[in-house]
Each structure stands twice: as structure tokens, then as C-alpha cells.
């Protein structure tokens, strides 16, 4: 080893010894959890006096599943290391997917960009300047073919992240490609996010009016329940709700409220709870307060089990299992001193694993700066792998179970969540809370509160209001750029497809879709057939929209071409 020459620092640092003493004697400023629960200095068996283990907690794999949905948890199989990928064109995304899979990623996970979520083709006037910047746009079957090129769809588990009403189109495009390639769709494994109701809180209201959301969301759920037994047809998204700035119990309460809207609709359509229950999944956040997040998830598991059994009369234990994926909290990350984010993400991933997650996405450290760079993306994957292979935390199911603190916190969060769900009932139910924009007000209130807590120093964030340094000038692992070539090519290909396809065949298929939509039939079969006839995303969505009384184009520019 050569000698390391420590270069002389430019300015010799003067130590403020007062600050040193302050640091030495420093202690936590707040005795509360992130969500505001007061916590004691220590929890003892007295705090758990009188609690019935079997009834209230139970072993992992046993109702009410507080400790996990499988008896052996990770001993049976690690959670899926599923990094979200969506960048540029379908070809670009395909490249990145291969890279991460090569490096040990165990699940495929592609995310729609904002143009696709809005239901716009790449050549839509509003889409052209933004396509590919935040994910991938799948305008037609050829894009889906490129995305899935060379991938054995019956072997992999593919998570398609389209949350909006366009999830119906995504499903149609995936099935169309699978069928064209000769796959038996009953063998396909994976999931589609398909939670259009919540997506209005991420923008996208033009694409996700409430009734259209319920209609299309449930069409997907119903179709998959009947035709794709290995497919998870929804991942009710609590994560995006949490990103609005709300607390842990609110995340659970509001998320469950939305889940119940779908369940009620499916039951109304004549499906029995146990027919679709086992494939109902969730997308959950893991924020920076480790114990609170673990307790939140345990509370969610118990609450969901009880809800499904007592409210909906589920009999199959698999319907009562709270099956979930975690996305570490994007809103906990900051662009100041960005490498700190790797640490935050690690703690959040740890929480997810300690909580018994089924599938995990770790943010890339550059989340608040740009789309993930290759290096950033890999780092996120490695974070998961270190957790899985080095730390040993996976050897025991629910290792924090039995902690007097964690059990106490689990109870508290469950109680608070129930209280909030009652509040929503008082407002008139979840649909009314959404329609009357009560939920919007709650989000705005909480977001403002969170910001003020930081401004006033009540909530400390390293690099933001403590231990700050000068403004960043360089992003450590570079900045991910989307080549403008990607968008241009995709736009041109879309226009070319529209010019050269068999218009008569297309028109017939669109007509069928329109009729199915108007007559209240499930639109998925017609969407699949139309996709095979080269109908584009905008055309499929526009047709259904018109049938439901909405303008063809969510941005009100294009007219229906049929």
C-alpha cells in the first residue's frame, strides 16, 4: 500500500468547542414517533399485561396474521428483490431491466411514465415533450413486444406499474403479446398496480374520474380473477397516499377505505370474496421511523385479516392475508448531501424486511434529483442483497414480535387507524370523502404541517435543518439523462403504425369495445382483441371514455378518429 498523502486542507478548521459539548450532551428532541405517538422511555411486560397472544397476535401464518402471512416467512423464500424500472423508450427500459436482472434482481418491475398514465400516445401534442422522462410509455402492441422481448413470460414474475385507468390497457397489451407468443395466460405470474381511485392524488384527475376508475379498475380485477389465477390484479397503493405527507395510521385507514370501494364493487358484480380475496395485494411505504413502520405493517395485517373475516365473511385464510410490496419512502429523501439517502433507504428497507414484506423496491439515492442512474439503481439492489445475504435478519419470522414496545405500538396504530376509518364513515364514506374533496383537505393539512415541523426544527432532517453544508454542485454518481432520440423514435414509430395498420379490422374491433363499454360488459376481452389489431393506448382509452360520457381525450385536444 502506497503512502496516502493527506493534502493540507485549504482553510484550517477552527473547532467551536461549545458546539462539541453540545453534540456530546445532545439527546433526542422529541419523545414521539414520526406520526406523533408519545412513547415511554421503556416498555415492560406490564404494558402487555392481559394480552392474549393467540387471539391478538398469533404465530406467523395464522389468523390474524399479525406476525406474517407465511409460517416460515423468508426461510421459505426471500422477498422479491424488485426494483422499479422505467426509463425512456421500451427499448431503453428493456436494457435497464436486463442489467438489474443480470445483477441479481429477482423480479421484473416496469413503471409507466406520466404520458402513459394519462392515457396518451407518444405522438399526442401533450406527450411529445415529456414521453419517457419518468417511466415508459407503451403506446401500442409493438412497444409491449419490445419491452418483453426475449423474456420467458411464463417463468418470470412481472409487476406492471400502471396505476391509472390505463392499467386496463396495460393488461390488454401484456395479454395480447403473451397470447400472440403462444403462452397460456393461466400460467402468467405477476401483478398490475391497477389502483385508479388513489391515482387522482398524484395528478391524473382527467384520466381517473371516480366512476371510470371503479369501472375499469374492477374490469381488470374481474377479468384476472376469472382468467389468470396466478396474477395479482391490484396493488392498492398506500405508498402514494403516504407521500402526500400523512401519518402511518392515516396511510392504513385511507388505503383500506379505497380497497373497500373495489371490494364492494366486485361483490356487487357477483364475485364471492374468496374468489378474488387471495389475489388482493397492497403497495406500502416504509418511512424513516423504523419501529413505527414495522408496527404499522403488523397492525395493517391484523386489521385487514379482521376486516376480511368479520366485515366480508371471508372463509379462505388466503383472503385474509395482507399481501404487500414495499416502496421505500421517496418523500423521506432530500437532495442535500444526497449520499445520505443510501443510509435512509437502508433503514427503510430494513424496516420492510423486519415487517415481513413480500416484494421490495428500494429507492435509488438520486430519487430527489433525477431518474435512477445505472449505478444508483444497482446500489439500491445491493442494499436489498446485503440485507438478504449478510445481516441474518431473514432467518426468523417477525423478529421484532414480542418486543413490548413494538406490540404496544402495533396496538396503538391499529386503534388510531380504526378511529380514522370511523371519521371517514362520518363524512359519508370513502367515496363521499373523495368526491367532496375531504381527503384533499386532509392531505393539504398534513403536508403543510410536515413542512412547518421542519421549518420550526420540530422535525430534524440531516442536511436540511441540522448539519447542513453548502449547496450541492455535483451529483455523486452522475445525472441520468433521457436521450431525445428515444422519444423521437417512439413518436415516429407510433405515427407509422397508425398509418400502416389495417383500418377496417381496427374499426370493427373498436366498435366491439365501444359496445361492450356502453353495455356494461367487461371491456378487457375487447381491449385485447383491439390491441392485436394495433389499436393504440389513446384509442382504447378514448373509446371507453366516450362510452362512459367523458371526452375522448383527457386533455381535450384530440377528436375521436373513428
Amino acid at each position, binding site marked *: 500500500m502506497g503512502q496516502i498523502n493527506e493534502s493540507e486542507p485549504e482553510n484550517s478548521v477552527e473547532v467551536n468547542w461549545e458546539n462539541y459539548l453540545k453534540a456530546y450532551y445532545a439527546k433526542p428532541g422529541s419523545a414521539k414517533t414520526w406520526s406523533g405517538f408519545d412513547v415511554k422511555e421503556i416498555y415492560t411486560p406490564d404494558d402487555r399485561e392481559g394480552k392474549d397472544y393467540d387471539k391478538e397476535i398469533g404465530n406467523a401464518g395464522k389468523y390474524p396474521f399479525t406476525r406474517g402471512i407465511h409460517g416460515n416467512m423468508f426461510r421459505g423464500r426471500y422477498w422479491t428483490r424488485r426494483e422499479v424500472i422505467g426509463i425512456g423508450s421500451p427499448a431503453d427500459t428493456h436494457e435497464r431491466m436486463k442489467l438489474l436482472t443480470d445483477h441479481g434482481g429477482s423480479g421484473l418491475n416496469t413503471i409507466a411514465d*406520466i*404520458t402513459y398514465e*394519462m392515457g*396518451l400516445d407518444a405522438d399526442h401534442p*401533450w*406527450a411529445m*415533450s*415529456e414521453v419517457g*422522462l*419518468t417511466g415508459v410509455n407503451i403506446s401500442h402492441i409493438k412497444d409491449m413486444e419490445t419491452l418483453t422481448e426475449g423474456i420467458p413470460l411464463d417463468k418470470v414474475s412481472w409487476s406492471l406499474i400502471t396505476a391509472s385507468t390505463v392499467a386496463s390497457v396495460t393488461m390488454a397489451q401484456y395479454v395480447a403479446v403473451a397470447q400472440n407468443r403462444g403462452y397460456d395466460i393461466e400460467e402468467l405470474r405477476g401483478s398490475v398496480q391497477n389502483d385508479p381511485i388513489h391515482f387522482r392524488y*398524484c*395528478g*391524473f384527475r*382527467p384520466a381517473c374520474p371516480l366512476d371510470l376508475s371503479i369501472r375499469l379498475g374492477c374490469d381488470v380485477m374481474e377479468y384476472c380473477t376469472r382468467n389468470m389465477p396466478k396474477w395479482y390484479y391490484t396493488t392498492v397503493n398506500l405508498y402514494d397516499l403516504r*407521500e*402526500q*405527507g400523512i401519518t402511518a395510521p392515516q396511510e392504513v385507514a385511507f388505503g383500506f377505505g379505497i380497497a373497500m370501494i373495489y371490494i364492494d364493487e366486485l361483490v356487487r358484480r357477483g364475485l364471492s370474496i374468496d374468489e378474488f380475496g387471495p389475489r388482493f395485494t397492497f403497495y406500502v411505504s416504509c418511512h424513516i421511523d423504523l419501529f413505527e413502520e414495522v408496527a404499522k405493517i403488523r397492525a395493517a395485517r391484523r386489521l385487514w385479516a379482521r376486516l376480511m373475516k368479520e366485515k366480508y365473511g371471508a372463509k379462505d385464510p388466503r383472503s385474509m392475508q395482507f399481501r404487500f410490496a414495499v416502496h421505500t419512502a421517496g418523500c423521506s429523501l*432530500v*437532495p*442535500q448531501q444526497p449520499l445520505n439517502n443510501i443510509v435512509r433507504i437502508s433503514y427503510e428497507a430494513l424496516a420492510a424486511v423486519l415487517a415481513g414484506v413480500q416484494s421490495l423496491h428500494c429507492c435509488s439515492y438520486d430519487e*430527489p*434529483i*433525477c*431518474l435512477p442512474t445505472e449505478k444508483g439503481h444497482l446500489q439500491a439492489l445491493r442494499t436489498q442483497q446485503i440485507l438478504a445475504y449478510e445481516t441474518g435478519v431473514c432467518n426468523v419470522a417477525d423478529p421484532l414480535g414480542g418486543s413490548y414496545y413494538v406490540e404496544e405500538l402495533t396496538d396503538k396504530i391499529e386503534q388510531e387507524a380504526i378511529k380514522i376509518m370511523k371519521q371517514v364513515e362520518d363524512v359519508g364514506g370513502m367515496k363521499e370523502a373523495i368526491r367532496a374533496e375531504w381527503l384533499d383537505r386532509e*392531505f*393539504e393539512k398534513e*403536508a*403543510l404541517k410536515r*413542512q412547518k415541523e*421542519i*421549518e420550526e426544527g420540530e422535525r430534524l*432532517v440531516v*442536511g*436540511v*435543518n441540522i448539519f447542513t453544508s453548502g*449547496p*450541492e*454542485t*455535483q*451529483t455523486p454518481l452522475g*445525472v441520468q439523462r*433521457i436521450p431525445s432520440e428515444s422519444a423521437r423514435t417512439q413518436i415516429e414509430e407510433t405515427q407509422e403504425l397508425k398509418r400502416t395498420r389495417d383500418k377496417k379490422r381496427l374499426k370493427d374491433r373498436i366498435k366491439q369495445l365501444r359496445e361492450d363499454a356502453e353495455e356494461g360488459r367487461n371491456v378487457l376481452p375487447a381491449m385485447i382483441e383491439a390491441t392485436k389489431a394495433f389499436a393504440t393506448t389513446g384509442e382504447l382509452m378514448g373509446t371507453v371514455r366516450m362510452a362512459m360520457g367523458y371526452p375522448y381525450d383527457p*386533455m381535450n385536444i384530440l377528436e375521436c378518429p373513428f
Partner: protein
Amino acid sequence: MAEQKKIKVVISKVGLDGHDRGAKVVSSLLKEAGMEVVYLGMYQMPEDIIRAAIDEDADVIGISYLSGEHLVFTPKIVGEMKKHGLDDVLFIAGGVIPPEDIPALKEMGVSEIFVAGSLTEPLVEYISSHVRKR
């Protein structure tokens, strides 16, 4: 009866970006700092934003970018501002912007950038000291 001179701020999102949590919070905080904030919401095109800024006689235009669209839309916004002679209006950008892009944005004509995570006081301070006088 001489009224106190209020600072008028137009805050908007551009294009399809639907992340509005930050824009709404900043609007509230600027109100609490004594400014009059017109919030335009989402799905605005540069022409619409500038037109609103003209009709409302804004001192400041604040744009929140959270989907990587800052390099796409900034030239268009600055272009519209120039076209309508809004040379004395501050253009402040915020959100998810890599530090590498800040010099380029300023070159294009952005007055100042406050990335996500920035505290409000420096923003208020900047606006108060740089806003045009009347």
C-alpha cells in the same frame, strides 16, 4: 390611504406533471409570509402561465418541476416572458432539479432555483430583496 405594497406571486405546474404537494405547501407558506399567491394548478402550458401572470400583474412566477421536465419547459416559459416584455418579473423554479442543471437554467433566464427540501425563509428573503419596486 396608501396600501401596503403586496408581492403578487403566480405559482404553477407545467405540462403533465401531477406532483402538486410542494407547490401547494409553498403557496401556503408564501401567504403566511404576507404575499398574495395565485395558484394555477396543473396542466398549464407556458402561454397560459404568462397570460395569467400578465392579467394578475404578477411580480413573481414560481414553477414547480417534479418530473424531469425543467429543461424542456424553461426555455418556452422564458420565451413567452420575453415575448410579452415581462423582463422585470422574477422567474423562480423549484422541485427535482440536479445541481448540474442550475447554471444552464440560470443562463436560460431563471432568476433563482430552490430545489426540493429547501426551507422557506431563503425563498422569502430572495423574493423580498429582488422583487421589482413600485
